[in-house]
């Protein structure tokens, strides 16, 4: 899949409490969660996003809680994919499991500024900064992780039911 949008740049160690503070976890409604995405460090973030926009962040993005509400809030807010230097482990699997593409590339993060137009090809791992013309590559997903993403998430991958895997 190819995604194109403006880059929103965040620093290292963006935690799940910042992505979606616990005080908003008394709902499972993705729309409501999306409205409060990044609210404590970037008021009004969700209103500024245009569908397709891309989050670019430092290392350990998504550290902290296992709340799947975090990638759900990001995806529902209109963010098409996240490029970071590294991801916290549970956030990484949650994003894969709900079908939010995430890519790791320190070079891309260093080479993208806030507001740059960025194009990401999740099949090849190519990340292009359209504004500067630079091209970076992230490692492609291994093994059945790729199959899960292509299926649009873990439960689709599982066959939408009790299929044995």
């Amino acid at each position, binding site marked *: 899949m190819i995604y194109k949008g403006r880059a929103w740049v965040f620093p290292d*160690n963006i*935690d799940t*409490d*910042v992505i979606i*503070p*616990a*005080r908003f*976890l*008394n*709902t*499972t409604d993705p729309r409501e969660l999306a409205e409060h995405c990044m609210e*404590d*460090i970037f008021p009004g973030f969700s209103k500024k996003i245009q569908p397709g926009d891309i989050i670019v962040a430092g*290392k*350990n993005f998504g*550290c*902290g*809680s*296992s*709340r*799947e*509400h975090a990638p*759900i809030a990001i995806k529902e807010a209109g963010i098409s994919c996240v490029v970071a230097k*590294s991801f*916290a*482990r*549970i956030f990484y*699997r*949650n994003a894969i*499991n*709900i079908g939010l593409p995430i890519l790791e590339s320190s070079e891309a993060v260093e080479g993208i500024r806030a507001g740059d137009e960025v194009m990401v090809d999740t099949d090849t791992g190519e990340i292009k900064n359209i504004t500067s013309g630079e091209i970076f590559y992230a490692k492609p997903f*291994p*093994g*059945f*992780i790729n199959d*899960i993403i292509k299926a649009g*998430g*873990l*439960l689709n991958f*599982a066959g*939408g*039911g*009790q299929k*044995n*895997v």
Partner: protein
Amino acid sequence: MGMTITQKILAEHAGKNFVEPGELIMAGVDLVLANDITGPVAIKEFEKAGGKEVFDKEKIALIPDHFTPNKDIKSAELSKALRDFARKYDITHYYEVGRMGIEHALLPEKGLVGPGDLVIGADSHTCTYGALGAFSTGVGSTDIAFAMMTGKCWFKVPESMKFIYRGKPSPFVTGKDFILFTIKDIGVDGALYRAMEFSGEALKYLTVDERLTITNMAIEAGAKNGIMEPDDVTLNYVKDRAKKTYKVYKSDDDAQYCDVREYDVSKLEPQVALPHLPENSVNISEVGDITVDQVVIGSCTNGRIEDMRMAAKVIKGNKVHPYVRMIVIPATQEVYLQMIREGLMEIFVEAGAVVSTPTCGPCLGGHMGILAKGERAVSTTNRNFVGRMGHPESEIYLTNPAVAAASAVKGKIAHPMEVIKNDI
């Protein structure tokens, strides 16, 4: 080539003789855990995917602990979704308010996890059970939905880091200080995608409650799991509780580690993690004058009976500082009852603290102790992220229960020796 305890448990549950770091496996799980925040999301996914039955009603634990007793109508709806699902599928291990506890304190206490188990939970602190020699790890709600249907979960086999603790810790230096010091050493992503294996003779000085504190915070260094090989202390703890058979695994002598670190804990001081990351730990002697508005003793990190005993020992005969709110939260009903039996409740209440029913409440800024703008808390919990306990401009300092209790008395961060009025 040998395997670590983590590799061995994963291999066994994947039906393999050997697994290597980096390998992707599908493994069977012994227990699947979710709470009132993550459970409802899993239930929605379960139903959306057409789930009609659970793989094993004995191997699922659903525990309302985060926003319970319910703080508002929305959270009551979440708890109801969890409760209705538990009743519909006749889930054995559903624990209602009044019989419940904070999940990671409750499951070991009830003997629902033991050595050699593979446990997943939709809560990042599921790594706690590694103290009993289990492989346990936090996952998301979709993983839980999938596991409730299939009894399985996908894993990437982690590399292991080994931490060896030597020496005998001083009084008031606890498992919490071991792990805060370790996180300071390696950083909040120092164990990313890895297993943290804790070992060394110093562990024998620690109670199981303290060991559970160490593995609880493995996630704060980014680890997939924290784990300890079971010893006599572990087996004594599990033998009277275990509801099922268990199997003790140990790492092979020639197991591979990507990093090995040794620490001498005999000179370790109580640690204080400054805002806003758990890696920001300093020795208590270096903290300086930090005044405090609120003290919280509790959570899945430090809400067990040994924590309560330690805090009570420090607070006994003292009074909470007039400008401080001290909130004590036993992690389970059993801890609560034991506190009554031992007279700890009386000690806390006489000192001017409030004692709450079990809940995760303030730890995640849910309820029962939210901070206002500019306020500062000393807390025995596991995270001090921006806004974690309330206002984004509030501050959290993480400590062990003895330091937290002493800080409540002095109105500023203090060493327990400054206030103790009892023999130690």
